[in-house]
């Protein structure tokens, strides 16, 4: 990546390579501070909220990464998220595999699914991708709803885990004060890995394909496989979120597969901002906490979300993350110069 730059290009238009140090410092600080949260005497319900928020953040990160690297807006990530949760529930119900194997196998199954799906959906352009991702995911939802013998329809399934998983008591995964550490750790690792991927040669290539596929092909690159890899990676991360949900809650319902969940994840990613890898996660925490607060005052959360989405799309194309970045750059720029 770029090294030290000329002062004339500092500021809001800063190239991706600039100010890494500052961002790295802020990122590490937030990551470390997060692990302290369960130990500072927060009320139990707030910690439970933060645990749900970090699971939502993982899903939103997956959706946002797909927008960032491939320019594809998925309206169907619930299929990967809820799909992983259901895979766990069904594997526990129908097989006698150890829980550890189930928990590791479910996301991998979903990645396989993601590759197959992407090979079909990536034959279309961006808009058709959005339409078809919605259709595919909703078909999975309908399948689970209608095929009652398979997964108990709309009543969902309770997952009977073993008492110990990975040598830890089941309650470790099902209580917020301990589970938060797990979800937060997964979120931090996911974001770190995705930042590395986005800054790698491969990340640069996928942005190039997103910008101008034909030119990329003419520079001698294959353009289908990089997008398949990005979609599979995004599916894997969504599936990790679903896996954590299943572990934490111990049950699955079809709402995990419903398109409103996919739509919500996309909205969170857009509101958070898709210019940066980390911004959708910020969006998720803002979204989940605001929803909880708003729940005390109004039943029209859905209208609020719709209006906020429209407002952000029209006025803040880079979302909350874009605004934060601009602020940090100005702050950092003043300090340095």
């Amino acid at each position, binding site marked *: 990546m770029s090294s030290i730059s000329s002062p004339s290009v500092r500021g809001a238009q800063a*190239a991706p*390579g600039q100010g890494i140090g500052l961002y790295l410092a802020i990122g590490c600080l937030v990551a470390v501070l997060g692990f302290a949260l369960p130990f500072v005497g927060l009320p139990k319900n707030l910690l439970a909220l933060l645990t749900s928020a970090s699971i939502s953040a993982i899903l939103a990160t997956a959706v946002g990464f797909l927008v960032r690297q491939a320019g594809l807006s998925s309206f169907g990530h619930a299929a990967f998220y809820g799909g992983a949760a259901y895979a766990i529930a069904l594997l526990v119900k129908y097989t006698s595999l150890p829980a550890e194997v189930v928990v590791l196998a479910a996301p991998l199954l979903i990645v396989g699914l993601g590759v197959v799906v992407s090979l079909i959906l990536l034959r279309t352009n961006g808009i058709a991708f959005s339409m078809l991702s919605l259709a595919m995911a909703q078909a999975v939802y309908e399948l689970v709803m209608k095929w009652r013998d398979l997964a108990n329809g709309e009543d969902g399934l309770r997952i009977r885990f073993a008492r110990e998983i990975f040598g830890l008591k089941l309650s470790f995964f099902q209580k917020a004060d301990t589970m938060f550490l797990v979800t937060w750790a997964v979120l931090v690792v996911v974001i770190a890995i995705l930042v590395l991927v986005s800054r790698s040669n491969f990340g640069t290539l996928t942005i190039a394909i997103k*910008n101008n596929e034909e*030119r990329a*092909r*003419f520079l001698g690159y294959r353009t289908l496989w990089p997008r398949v890899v990005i979609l599979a990676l995004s599916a894997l991360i969504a599936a990790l979120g679903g896996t954590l949900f299943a572990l934490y809650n111990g049950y699955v319902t079809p709402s995990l597969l419903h398109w409103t969940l996919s739509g919500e994840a996309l909205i969170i990613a857009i509101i958070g901002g898709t210019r940066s890898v980390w911004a959708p996660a910020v969006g998720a925490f803002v979204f989940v906490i605001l929803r909880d607060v708003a729940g005390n005052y109004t039943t029209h959360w859905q209208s609020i979300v719709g209006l906020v989405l429209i407002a952000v799309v029209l006025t803040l194309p880079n979302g909350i993350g874009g605004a934060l970045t601009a602020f940090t750059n100005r702050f950092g720029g003043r300090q340095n110069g």
Partner: protein
Amino acid sequence: MADGYMLEARGLTRRYAGFTALNNVSFALREGEIRGLIGSNGAGKSTCMDVLTGRGKNPIGTVRLGGEDISKLSQRERRAKGLSRSFQKTSIFPDLTIREQVRLAARNAELDNSEEVISELALSSIADRLASDVSYGDQRRVDLALALVGRPKLLLLDEPAAGLTVEESLSMARMLRDLSERWKLTVMLVEHDMEVIFAICDRLTVLHLGEVLTEGDPESVRSNPEVIRAYLGSSFA
């Protein structure tokens, strides 16, 4: 390359539903030559570039690069053989910095001369800015840089000076002449700006309605009555 030609094109043809955009066009370029491809709008210049690079479906005709038949290869494979092009409409990657995209272009070439290309094209001072943040003239040079990196054997340039000021286009022309001499580049250039064409081309091929009208050195083409009637008009006589 026993016959000394870097590019030999024979019988290039492309038909769309209902009309023939390019009909049995042939030409050959010597190594190090700068060839101008001129003609009025719709004469088939861009189509000719597309067929040479394998863009679009069912190209007809043979293309030999350095003696090797590349007619059956994909765009991607042709680039790997050393055939490179720029596009009429600026075709760059707005979300990448200039350095990132030039390096990306260099990664598939045998020779990574991205830094050299960046400095030759006077992009060093803005190399770490996003391509979407620089001026149009700079973007045209980025487009050229993507085509030039890796020192291709043959460079096809589709109106590199389009939209540039007179000054900018003349400086681009000088730069091209200079680079082609130093790097032994063979260049085929589509351009409407006759100043640029006459300043740097060794030979010209004139297309008219999808066919070759004539070919020759700039002076003879300029004075050819057929060319004047079909394309140049009286102002150049």
